[in-house]
Structures are given as structure tokens and as C-alpha cells.
């Protein structure tokens, strides 16, 4: 706990040292909401959305955008933290600490994760309070789905960090997953509109299950009984991805320590 707080405190101090950045993040969120508010008014009634989730397009897109922003931030946060440490030279002293690589990189991602959670919840709150999104929230189901989704995506973020540790720039894994998630996981349209083959493929993306679960919990008030299959799928992703991430980080560390490229940026 002391270590977690030390990382959070350090990164919060650094983040608040760049005040304009925080202002731009908030205004960026409001800009996105305004854009989708008017887009939803243009689209009008969306039968596919109404039939599936019983709500309007803006509320549907709001949960999709908040979830996608969170998942993308989780996926990029760990690699971003590693990249930033490579650039400012702090990676070597951090990895020189008496902790495992998985432990250090996970802690390095603590602030990006906390920041992403706050931003996504803020987006939902602004959407509901300022733009009239209709949320019918089951709080427990929402929190459990959010936690399982975040865990699965943190593992993907750690896999991405392993790439960054070795290749420094350019992470094909995250790029591919992000593009596939936006295309097939149902961020801006329900997966029901996809052809059957693509819909079947979408089930192999954790984002599909995260988006479905969070929409069910936030828009229809679905409880644990209805969300059990989604939770099982997300848990399965966690059980596969976390050991994989630990192995990838360990292999990446070994590679850079053999090649002598750890201090390189």
C-alpha cells in the first residue's frame, strides 16, 4: 500500500505540474459529449439500439465512449508510463529497485489507471447531468463489471508495456487491438448490426464483453444474475492474460538486459 501511494502521489504531483494539460482534458471531454449529443439528435431514434438496450442513441454512445476511453487508457497507460520513463531516464533506477518487473510496471501504471477511471466516470456524470443521458444504473453490477473489465485491460496494458520495453516506440499489439475493438466490439453501434461471422469474432475481444456488461448495468439496470455470463467471460480473459503479461514482461526484461538496451530511449 505504501508503494502504491508513493507512485500515485509522485505521478499526481507531476500531472498537476502541467495545469494546461488538465484543462485540455476536461474541455476535450465536454467537446466529445457535445459532438455526440448533436450526432444523436441527427440520428434520431435508432431502432437497433432501442430494441437491444431500450434507450436512446446518445445514452448508448455515452456508455460506449466512456468505456472505450477507459479501456484505451488502460491499454496504453502502462506502455505510456514505461515510454515516458525511458525518455526521462527514470526507467533504469525504477527497475533497479528490489521489486519484480511485473510489480514495478504495474505500479507505474497506477496513476494512468486511476486517472482513466476518474475521466470515464466524469464523462458519464457530465453526460447524465449536463446532456440528459438516461442511465438506469445497477451500482453493484456496474462496479463489478467495471472492475473485471479494468483487470482484463490492465493485463493487455502490461503486454503492451512489454513491447515498449523492447521496441521503445511502436506497439503493433495495442494498435491492432484498439482498431479491432472500435470496429467490432460495439463502441458506437451494437454488435447486432455486424454480419454473423464478425459478430462471432467479436466475442474473442474483451472489449465486446466489457461494453456489453457495462451497458447492461448502466442502461438497463441489469443485476448479477443477468451479467454472470459476461463476468465469466471477463474473468476468463483475466486468467489467460495476466500470466501471459507476467511472462511477456519477464521475457522483455531478460531481452533488454541481455542486449544492454535498458537505458536506451
Amino acid at each position, binding site marked *: 500500500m505504501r508503494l502504491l501511494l508513493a507512485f500515485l502521489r509522485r505521478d499526481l504531483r507531476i500531472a498537476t505540474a502541467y495545469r494546461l494539460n488538465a484543462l485540455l482534458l476536461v474541455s476535450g471531454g465536454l467537446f466529445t459529449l457535445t459532438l455526440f449529443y448533436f450526432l444523436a439528435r441527427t440520428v434520431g431514434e435508432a431502432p437497433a439500439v432501442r430494441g437491444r438496450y431500450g434507450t436512446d442513441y446518445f445514452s448508448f454512445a455515452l456508455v460506449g465512449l466512456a468505456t472505450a476511453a477507459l479501456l484505451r487508457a488502460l491499454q496504453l497507460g502502462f506502455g505510456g508510463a514505461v515510454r515516458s520513463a525511458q525518455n526521462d531516464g*527514470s526507467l*533504469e533506477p525504477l527497475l533497479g529497485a*528490489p521489486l519484480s518487473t511485473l510489480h514495478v510496471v504495474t505500479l507505474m501504471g497506477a496513476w494512468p489507471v486511476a486517472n482513466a477511471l476518474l475521466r470515464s466516470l466524469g464523462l458519464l456524470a457530465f453526460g447524465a447531468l449536463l446532456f440528459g443521458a438516461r442511465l438506469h444504473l445497477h451500482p453493484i453490477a456496474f462496479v463489478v463489471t467495471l472492475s473485471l473489465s479494468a483487470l482484463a485491460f490492465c493485463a493487455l496494458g502490461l503486454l503492451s508495456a512489454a513491447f515498449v520495453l523492447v521496441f521503445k516506440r511502436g506497439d503493433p499489439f495495442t494498435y491492432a487491438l484498439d482498431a479491432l475493438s472500435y470496429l467490432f466490439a460495439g463502441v458506437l453501434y451494437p454488435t447486432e448490426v455486424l454480419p454473423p461471422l464478425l459478430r462471432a469474432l467479436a466475442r474473442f475481444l474483451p472489449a465486446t464483453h466489457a461494453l456489453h456488461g457495462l451497458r447492461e448495468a448502466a442502461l438497463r439496470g441489469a443485476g448479477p444474475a443477468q451479467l454472470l455470463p459476461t463476468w465469466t467471460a471477463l474473468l476468463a480473459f483475466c486468467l489467460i492474460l495476466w500470466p501471459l503479461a507476467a511472462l511477456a514482461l519477464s521475457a522483455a526484461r531478460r531481452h533488454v538486459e541481455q542486449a544492454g538496451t*535498458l537505458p536506451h530511449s
Partner: protein
Amino acid sequence: MRPAPEVEVIALEKTYPRPFWPWARVRGRKEAARQALRGLSFEVRAGEVVALIGPNGAGKSTLLRILSGLLLPSAGTARVASRDVVRERPGCRREVGAALADDRGLSPRLTARQNLEFFAALYAVPRSEVDARLHELARALETRRLLDREVRTLSTGEKARVVLMRALLHRPRVLLLDEVTRSLDPGAARRVRTRLLSDAAARGAAVLFASHDLAEVEAVSHRVLLLDGGRLAATGSFAEVRPAAESVFAAVPKEEE
């Protein structure tokens, strides 16, 4: 019976592999594998201050990085505080305080104190002791007036002193220093090395430091290791090693004009 050495290196070798060949070819690079250490063996005992000297590329930084747990050797054994640097990595790193060449590991937007408190948590320094240790180190390294300044406002020499504080904060059993006084003015360098090395040796820490400053080496080291081309060319007191060092430095080929 003699106590186990704090640093024990046996037949240590390090070869940097050649870049992945298709990628190197695309980029037009023709780099071969580079052997940086060749069968190096030596020991450093508790309380001993040992200097590493040698021309550029002799393997000093490579050796210090291996002992810090930041680089894997290709062959041989290295133990720090009786722990193998490959098989017992986190435990080994706990016993090491390292200030390596070109160390930039301080967050520029934080104060020196905030940076050091962060590393104190990382090395599990008891919370109740952090302030006292910072005070003690700041006095020894003449950094009291720097502690509450943002790192980005410090000069290179001031940052080097904060990096030294970071290396010493958790009271390591082995101190590894790579040209740490290079960016200090001569007076500060003399005071810092005298206090730093004599304090470390007095509390029984083993110190291995790389330097190009032969006056510094003569002043503070108990023993000198002369590296040349990754091999141990000579070892002994400064006076014993000096003739070999002079011939090694004189033999360094100069770039053709």
C-alpha cells in the same frame, strides 16, 4: 575464517549480441557482437574502497551495471552480498546502492526531497527514519539548501549529488559508483568523495567506483583494478598499478586526423 566478500566476481564475461540481422541490414548497420568483459575475476570485502580504472570501453560501466542487476552477464558468476546477481535479482538489488554514468533518474518537476522520499518507499526505508537519513546525507553531501528545490532548477553537479543521496538512502551494503564526481567542481568533488567514501567504508559498506581521475583514485582507494579490453590488466595498490595504468593509457590509439 574470513567473512565472505561483499562483491565476488568469477570468470565474468559479457558479450553484447549483434543486432537482429534482418533489421540491422534494413538500417544499413554492420555491427558485430561486442565482447565487453573477458573472464574477469576479483573480490571486494566489507569496508574496502576499490577503484576501477581503464580507458573508455574497457568494461567499467558494463561491470557496474551487471553488479547493479541491470544487465545480464553472458557467462561466469557475480555475487553481491552473497547473492547471485542473476538468480537472486530483487534480493541482490536491495543490497546495492548505485549511481551509474549519465543517471537521469530524477523527476524534474518534483523537488529533490520528493524524489528521495519516493525512492525511500521503493527501497522500504522505514517511514520514521526517512527524515533523519535525508538530514544526515544532506549534511554530508552539502545539499541541505537543494532539498526543497525542483530538480529541473538544479545544476548538473547538484543533480549528481542528489543521485548520490538516492544511492545511499537505504544504507546499502555495496556501493557502485560510476564517475559520480565528474560533474562536480574540484573542491566539491574532493569534499564529497572524502565524506562519502570514508563514511561508507566506516559503516562497513564495500565500495566499487569507476573513475578517470587518477588523483581521486590515489586519494581514496584501498585497491585498484585496471581494466583493459574487458580483461583485468593489473590489480593492487595505486602505486603498484600505476606503471601498468600509464602504459595502458599511453597505448590507447588516437583517431586519425
